[in-house]
């Protein structure tokens, strides 16, 4: 599975979204499931999945799925494809 697919999986699991939800265009607080508590759980799940640690400032700036993918790349979690 590609990194991006794994990230999609993390988003769906953390935000309790159905398996077929398209998360690529998702933005923070755009859906009720992605609130501030879920945001922290989502970040923790990303950290576990990709064995990285995300800073407080990075966590606050992670305002969309696209930003999350950028963050993974920045942390060197292999090429996000």
């Amino acid at each position, binding site marked *: 599975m590609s990194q991006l697919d794994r990230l999609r999986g993390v988003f769906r699991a953390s935000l309790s979204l159905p398996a077929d939800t398209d998360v690529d265009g998702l933005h923070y607080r755009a859906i009720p499931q992605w609130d501030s508590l879920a945001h*922290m759980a989502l970040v*923790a799940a990303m*950290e576990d999945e990709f064995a990285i*640690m*995300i*800073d*407080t*400032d990075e966590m606050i700036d992670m305002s969309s799925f696209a930003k999350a993918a950028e963050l993974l790349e920045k942390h060197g979690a292999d090429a996000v494809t």
Partner: protein
Amino acid sequence: MPTPSPDRRVALVTGSTLGIGRAVAVRLARTGHEVVVHGRDRERAAKAAAEVAAETGGHTDTVHGDVADPAAVSAMMREVHRRHGRLDALVINAGGHAASLLGMMHSDVVSRLFHVNALGATHTLQAAVKLLRRGTDPAVVLVSSVMGRKGAPGQAVYSATKAAVLGLTLAAAKELGPQGIRVNAVAPGYIQTDMLSTLDDRARAETIAATPLGRLGTAGDVAAAAAFLLSADACFITGQVIGVDGGLVL
């Protein structure tokens, strides 16, 4: 991700190269913790960690960085994450002191005290929360001061920074309690460490006279209280401030 060692609790003690933090590190290393020793300088921290390990026969590790610098604090926590994957105990102790009458303290000194004591504690707790969530029965102790509760002439700025630590403790206890993370504070009185080296003989005698238990405190006195608050014996205690001051606060 490292495999957590099931038998040892992972504890980070900030400002543990000497003084109160060092005594806390020794106490925790003796009671089954793997202690991450911390100070500003890498070599000093590594030396202290080696000494704590030799003295206790326990396991230690090291991180370093100025707690006033949020980027340095993030880097420290990333190291803890990389090596240990979690925190079971956190002691936010790193701090500095300066005394001066109001109107006499240079603004640089005011800023530095707030940056190290108040902002440093805040950066540390913020950056550690995710590691604590991965811990077992995680607990935090913040080191405030009797000055943060009571104040004294010449101590206004220091007192304000330590009162900030108490506000942080109380709010964090409420916020993190539902996640199983306990947060308490100790408020030491006059403790014999390098920080007290400016106290002359007269001031020392006056302080002892004002202390119902009739002596200055030791770093070990504070370490005992912190170790209790971190232990399973304190499992229903959160949001509390324990004075370790010989009754000075009364």
